[in-house]
């Protein structure tokens, strides 16, 4: 007997994959930063930088931050998501009209 929605699964598989990518990106963030620091360098010898290139390519593909997509948290919509609320525009509008978003008001000027 729960008044609100209780979610125990992710909305769809794409959201699950996005979650996995976020976790891996968090784990490998430091290493990627450091290896990139060696790569984007004019001081160190080029051979070192080539070795670093290979190393970073060997890391799992899902560990790079660029692959993360800011999806809507409730509907997993990849587009039209506002970053502050992590919600897609449709869900945001739904909640705002039902006065469930704190501090949000219909604009009128």
């Amino acid at each position, binding site marked *: 007997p729960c008044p609100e929605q209780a979610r125990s699964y992710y909305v769809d598989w794409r959201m699950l994959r996005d979650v996995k990518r976020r976790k891996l990106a968090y784990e490998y963030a430091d290493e990627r930063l*450091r290896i990139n*620091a060696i790569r984007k360098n004019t*001081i*160190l*010898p080029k*051979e*070192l930088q080539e*070795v670093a290139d290979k190393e970073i390519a060997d890391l799992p593909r899902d560990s790079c931050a660029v692959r993360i997509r800011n999806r809507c948290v409730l509907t997993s919509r990849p587009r039209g998501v506002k970053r502050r609320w992590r919600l897609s525009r449709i869900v945001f509008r739904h909640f705002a009209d039902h006065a469930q978003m704190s501090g949000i008001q219909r604009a009128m000027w």
Partner: protein
Amino acid sequence: EKDGSTASKSTTEVASKSREDTAETPKQKLLDLIGNMKVEVSYRKKLQELKTREIKKQATNKLEGPDSEGSTLQQATEDTQRGRPLNPELVEAASAVASSLPLNKKQTESELLAQLRRHEETTDKQKKGGTINLRNVISEMAVKRQSPAQRGVRISSRLSLDLDEDGRRIRSERLSPQSFDSRRSLKVGRRLNIFTKASTETENTLKTVSSPTIWDLEFAKEIGAITAQPPRNGFEEMIQWTKEGILWEFPIDNEAGMEDDAEFHEHIFLEKHLEDFPKQGPIRHFMELVICGLSKNPYLSVKQKIEHIEWFQKYFEEKKELLKEI
């Protein structure tokens, strides 16, 4: 019942009165009272002062160069503030009280004078003119009062007449913190400081089990599951969430969970971590740039910065052979 009432009356008076000076004049009696009270209070306050001074000294020892100078300057200003000229009458009264007591006169006199100085400061701050020091002293003293429930408990316990050889009541589990109410108890009277406090901490640490067994853990989990009832209302739910860490603590503290006891110089002067690197060559140049960037980074803790440098160290050691070919 009469004994009980007199005993309760004595407790409602100032707790520190234990001396039986047969001073004749009422003024002498008053002075003695004040002297007793002040000596008792100032002893505790002196202990507290000593403790705070020790803490301050430790703090100053830990700090280096410029920081210690600042703290010593602060202490110097505090000391100079206390050296205000006192009312000469008060000084005379303090000396009189000190001479009346059969104790170390200079010590008591200095303590009394310190007390007076503190009173002076507080009165100056509050800007109350014309109040007698006596009132300040008495108002500062915390009078121990009995609640009527406690009084009833004591009377009932007295009726049972379970006396020890010392005259103490046997039911002392509840009353041990209030053992002054019996006629002859061990805790009344000035501290003689003959014995030092026995260290009970070592005993407790020895009693802890080395490794809790699985059965103990299961038992503890069972107890936890039974005692943790579901929250009756929203407040209890919020309390539970705060304990678990789901909800932040309000008012929001931006530095919650971030301890960062390191000083600024540990963040900036990171060259000491560069000792294992070769002193010439491009690697040194590169690491110096890394350190320059880290010193400007306010978001990482000192440990994270050291880990960063150590990672680079490992990386370059692994690539040593490669580097030697070049």
